[in-house]
């Protein structure tokens, strides 16, 4: 009864119509941000340097190139087995960096979960992670390459760093969702710190961790392709780079893109299945 009367007093009528939009701060900020973005998008392109470019012919050529790429894919420089082998290498790069990253993230996440550790430690780790995340993966890989040499070592180390930053946050968030009563109950029985980790934290969060880790593996596969192209890490990305920048063979680029796309779609499918199976069944 009280609820209805307070509802009625909130209704505002203007020009005989009930006002359904109310003014508040979050609405104001939202509109401000949106109008800023729209304005920026309209104005900013005028401040860029385009050089001498004939947009019309460029678009025409692009459409022609895309036609060659997607409608007439063919392999010429690489054989089918070689292409499949390169895909395997890309997957291997993604796997290794995900694995190493996941192991390190697990320990970092324990340190940065606010219900397991004092907050100053977690703040240090969070700051460290946002520093890692701020540097693009390709820059990390190239920096590592100066000491380790261009190749898989630099690529895996660089990709691992971003994996750590991502997974630490994901793991820590799922650790923080654990029922505190369980931890307290174990503490009360005199369980040691690592007992709590093994008997409460791990079993409670393992399905989330698997799902996040696979999601990262899926991402890392895409990153590994990019690193192959931009930092000579090998794998299908490097073939893609060679086919387009050295041989200008768009048919081959198309074929390689299709290969990469199919694997990515399979990974995405598996990742959604894992997520639904592990997390969907719980809630």
């Amino acid at each position: 009864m009280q609820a209805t009367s307070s509802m009625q007093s909130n209704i505002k009528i203007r020009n005989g119509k009930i006002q359904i939009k109310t003014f508040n701060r979050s609405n104001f900020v939202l509109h401000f941000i949106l109008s800023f973005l729209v304005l920026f998008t309209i104005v900013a392109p005028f401040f860029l340097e385009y050089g001498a470019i004939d947009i019309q012919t460029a678009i025409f050529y692009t459409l022609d190139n895309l036609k060659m790429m997607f409608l007439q894919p063919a392999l010429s420089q690489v054989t089918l087995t070689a292409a499949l082998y390169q895909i395997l290498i890309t997957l291997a790069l993604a796997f290794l960096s995900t694995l190493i990253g996941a192991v390190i993230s697990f320990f970092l996440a324990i340190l940065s979960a606010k219900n397991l550790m004092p907050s100053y430690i977690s703040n240090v780790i969070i700051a460290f992670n946002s520093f890692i995340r701020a540097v693009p993966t390709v820059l990390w890989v190239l920096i590592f390459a100066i000491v380790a040499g261009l190749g898989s070592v630099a690529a895996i180390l660089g990709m691992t760093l971003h994996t750590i930053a991502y997974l630490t946050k994901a793991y820590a968030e799922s650790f923080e969702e654990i029922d505190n009563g369980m931890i307290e109950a174990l503490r009360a029985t005199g369980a040691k710190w690592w007992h709590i980790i093994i008997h409460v934290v791990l079993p409670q969060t393992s399905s989330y961790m698997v799902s996040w880790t696979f999601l990262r593996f899926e991402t890392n596969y895409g990153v590994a392709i990019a690193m192959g192209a931009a930092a000579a890490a090998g794998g299908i990305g490097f073939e893609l780079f060679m086919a387009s920048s050295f041989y200008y063979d768009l048919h081959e680029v198309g074929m390689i893109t299709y290969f990469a796309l199919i694997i990515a779609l399979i990974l995405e499918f598996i990742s959604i299945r894992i997520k639904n199976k592990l997390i969907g069944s719980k809630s």
Partner: protein
Amino acid sequence: MDDRLDIIKKKKIQMTVVLLIMLLITMGTSRLTEFNFIEGFQSIPGTIGWMAANLIPGAEAMENFSKVLSKLWETIVLSIISTTTAGLFALFFALFGSKTTKVNGPLAAFSRLIASVFRNIPVVAWALVLVISFGHNVVTGYFALFFTTFGFLVRAFIETIDEASMESVEALNATGATYFQMVFRGVLPESLPQMVSWLFFMIDTNIRSATLVGLLTGTGIGYLFDLYYKRLDYETVGLITICIIVVVIVIEFISNKVRRLIL
């Protein structure tokens, strides 16, 4: 009691099998990629030492500061406008693709498929193909970022619409609202804050992707990084890296602030 012991035993066996398989894959993949764990970890302290010694920009590198700033500006503009324009297109595709607002089944499946294809074609492939016809130009970077952002945002927007608006859509449908009334009065107001939050996430991601695309296509800050990297002018490389870090952290700060205000 016996049953429970069995379960624990079974779990232990399962865990061992999983760990063994992981170990095998690890050995196989490290052989395949010629990755040596010991060598890999040994190069970490060397790299950190090298970074401390060489990447700190000195006075000489600061002379390039204005050049770095102008390229940085280009990269920022590129990542923002590619995100906003992709967001506009993604909004339409998401409205058609979402379960609550779809017009009909085939169209929904089609728009989901398109988004999935665009999302999963690597940004490198777009960049490398576009650079052939557009050349070393901002337009190349713009389109490469646009396509992948579009694919990602459609998925994110579909999830947002599905999560946010089922109830209000039902209520509006019950009052006999038209499709457009339902979208503009029910769906959009409810999912807009979350969508803007996704836009900010994407701007942040795109700054980093733009560096990668720039490296490949010779535009923006990525091009400059590549240039000084190949010239072995590591102090300027350090300067560029620091600039990117500052920009990404500032954007992350702003987007956190905005998210807290609008969500």
